[in-house]
């Protein structure tokens, strides 16, 4: 097999420059994509990865630089133009159209038609065939919005793959997918690679980078750090390329697992809701981290929603400090000083038009009631503290949060709940879309909070990650808590086999 650099150059970006008010997002960046390679584009949150992609596909106008596809200069005017050039893209904020059917989402703009009329039956047949390749068997006539985030993400990927005649761009496509779905996706990417498609892949999961990429390019603060074949690049070297400093390997992992004793802070007995979640028992003690592991749809998020009151339980009881409590609405949860960072942060979390500061103090203000406004000085203080603590990259706290990079928006959301100083915090995929540096930072914050007596319930699809910081892990399957692991049983392997049901 010829090495990738011998393959013809497919996409050549030279000297690309793009600025936003107050931020230089890209400084003279060069980037080359060969036909038949999978090229990882890496960098910290706010490094400029999504901006590079959006300039390439015509969402933003570049300030300077050239882009060549197959040797011809191109300048996509809008995303439709990029599609016509054979560049298929899954944008980071994969928002397809929830009100259209799955089939329409897959085929909008290129529906099969006859005499000007869309052949709906044919379109559905093609859609089913397309999704079958991803192991997805759903009713494609239903609106996309009725399906889970993971299904929506697979649909977005399937659409982009189907559209990419020459180049496929994936901006953090695996964020909501479980291990099995990621494997299916990688199988499809390998197949596309062998057919000579150039693939640009953005992710923060280093395991995935090593599993699938041939070469990587690293950006830092909008500048090119370098491009390397992945085979010659040890992990430590890659991380320091991204961060511009060394990161101790153990920074990502908690060293010792503790057995927390004492009275539980929260206790749920026979808690459940018909057709949503089988009744379960759950206890979390102050200072303890309990992980929820399982495949997508196994009931992880549903457990979290019940516990926080987003879904109302129809059986069982809840206790806080041993006293029975009622948790029927999120307000009840918030009043008991529970915090919850949802999984689908794009739609359930940020208020794009409000500033970073306003987003951070939102939950705290709501808790105090809107009549007792937090003084402006105090607001600024809180915002600044968390911007520093979580290293949120923003020119200042007054920037509308929608203009921050994806990962930085997520950090701000985490800050929103940390600011309320909760006693019991539920984190649904807390490190999704967050870079390695900040990842380590967040785990450190989690640890410190535990020492201060916070009780934590964490959901994650990253088995290594969940095994590294949880004291106990509850494994779920088919909307049922099937087993609880503690002590030395907490390891990625045991979790994996329990999920698989052996």
């Amino acid at each position, binding site marked *: 097999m010829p090495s990738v650099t011998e393959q013809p150059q497919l996409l050549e970006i030279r000297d690309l420059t793009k600025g936003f008010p107050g931020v230089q997002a890209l400084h003279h960046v060069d980037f080359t994509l060969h036909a038949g390679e999978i090229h990882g584009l890496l960098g910290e949150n706010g490094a400029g990865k999504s901006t590079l992609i959006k300039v390439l596909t015509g*969402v933003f106008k570049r300030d300077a630089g050239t882009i060549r596809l197959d040797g011809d200069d191109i300048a996509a005017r*809008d*995303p*439709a133009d*990029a*599609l016509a050039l054979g560049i298929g*893209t899954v*944008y980071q904020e994969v*928002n*397809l*159209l*929830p*009100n*259209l059917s799955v089939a*329409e*989402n897959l085929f*909008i*703009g290129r*529906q099969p*038609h006859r005499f*000007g*009329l*869309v052949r*709906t039956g044919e379109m559905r047949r093609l859609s089913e065939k397309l999704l079958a390749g991803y192991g997805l068997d759903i009713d494609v006539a*239903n*609106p996309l*919005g*009725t399906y*889970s985030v993971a299904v929506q993400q697979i649909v977005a990927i399937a*659409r982009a793959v189907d559209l990419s005649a020459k180049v496929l761009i994936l901006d953090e496509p695996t964020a909501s997918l479980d291990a099995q779905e990621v494997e299916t996706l990688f199988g499809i990417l390998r197949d596309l690679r062998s057919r000579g498609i150039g693939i640009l892949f953005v992710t923060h999961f280093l395991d995935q980078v090593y599993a699938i990429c041939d070469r990587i390019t690293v950006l830092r603060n909008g500048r090119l750090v370098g491009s390397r074949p992945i085979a010659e690049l040890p992990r430590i070297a890659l991380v320091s390329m991204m961060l511009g400093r060394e990161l101790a390997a153990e920074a990502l992992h908690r060293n010792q697992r503790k057995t927390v004793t004492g009275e539980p802070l929260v206790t749920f007995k026979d808690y459940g809701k018909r057709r949503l979640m089988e009744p379960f028992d759950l206890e979390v003690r102050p200072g303890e981290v309990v992980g929820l592991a399982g495949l997508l749809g196994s009931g992880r998020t549903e457990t979290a929603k019940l516990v926080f009151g987003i*879904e109302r339980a129809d059986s069982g009881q809840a206790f806080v400090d041993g006293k029975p409590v009622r948790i029927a609405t999120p307000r009840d949860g918030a009043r008991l000083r529970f915090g919850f960072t949802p999984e689908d942060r794009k739609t359930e979390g940020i208020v794009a038009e409000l500033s970073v500061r306003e987003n951070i103090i939102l939950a705290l203000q709501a808790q105090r009631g809107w009549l007792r406004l937090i003084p402006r000085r105090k607001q600024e203080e809180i915002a600044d503290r968390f911007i520093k603590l979580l290293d949120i990259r923003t020119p200042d706290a007054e920037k509308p949060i929608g203009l921050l990079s994806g990962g930085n928006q997520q950090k701000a959301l985490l800050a929103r709940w940390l600011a309320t100083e909760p006693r019991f915090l539920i984190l649904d995929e807390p490190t999704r879309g967050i870079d390695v540096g900040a990842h380590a930072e967040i785990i450190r914050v989690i640890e410190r909070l535990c020492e201060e007596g916070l009780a934590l319930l964490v959901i994650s699809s990253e088995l290594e990650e969940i095994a590294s910081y949880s004291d106990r892990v509850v494994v779920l399957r088919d909307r049922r808590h099937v087993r609880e692991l503690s002590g030395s049983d907490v390891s990625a392997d045991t979790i994996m086999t329990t999920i698989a049901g052996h």
Partner: protein
Amino acid sequence: MIRRHLPVLITLAVFIVGYLICLAQFPSFASTRVIGNLLTDNAFIGIVAVGMTFVILSGGIDLSVGSVIAFTSVFLAVSIEKYGLNPYLAFILVLGIASLFGAGMGFVIHTFQIPAFIVTLAGMFLARGLCFVLTTDSIPINAPAYGLITDIAFALPGGGRLTFIAIVMLLTFAAGIVLAHFTRFGANVYALGGNRTSAELMGVPVAKTTIRIYLLSSFLAGVAGIVFSFYTSAGYSLAATGVELDTIAAVVIGGTLLTGGYGTIIGTLVGVLIQGLIQTYITFEGTLSSWWTKIAIGALLFAFIVLQRGLSAASLRTR
């Protein structure tokens, strides 16, 4: 499946219940005469409502339609009666003008990213102003062609008449249904209403679609204006004031979400008929002031908006 069509089904149920109530009180509601009149009297509202449904589905609004209807009728009256223009030529001409007018509004809305509300409000004053420039009088239209066209009708069994303008309305609805649900343009309209940014990222031709939507709305307002001039046989600058609001009400009662993205054309037809039914009932009743129509429609509208909120909240919860 049922859930997806719930708003339309509810609208339909309201219509049927309303019809049965009318029937119980006035048995003549079963006659083809009353039904034929219901269609004829609401023909022009129905035609604009089709265009308005597209606009609202895309997340926009068109406040200019009433003025465009008035302009059309005035233009026809002046050009046919004062300048002796061939009526058929006048129809083509006025539809061309209306289309251009709509396309212009769509262009401004897209290019300058100004809310449709403001642009079409300006369009409303502009079109109304143009009427007064043409004439301030009510001009009767006596051209023979008008007599010919208004005489076209199918006799229905039982003495009713399905008039030409009622037929035009029904055909407009049929065309609207095909356009909304079976063409790429229709899918693009729903896409815009679902999420404009996503639609753009997915390669939906946002500019072209926006322009076409408002072109369609104004074109249909032009058609409604022609129909209106058959109906009244006159052109008058102050005609059809407030029609835009009646139309929006019909669309919303028909189950289309004001925020865009969800709704059907057939629902709008039922929405128009519900309004017509209330009007007819009040005429039959005789003692009630016609303002009761407005009050009833207001109450219905309110109920439907509350219902829609409830439904969308419920569907979010069960996700």
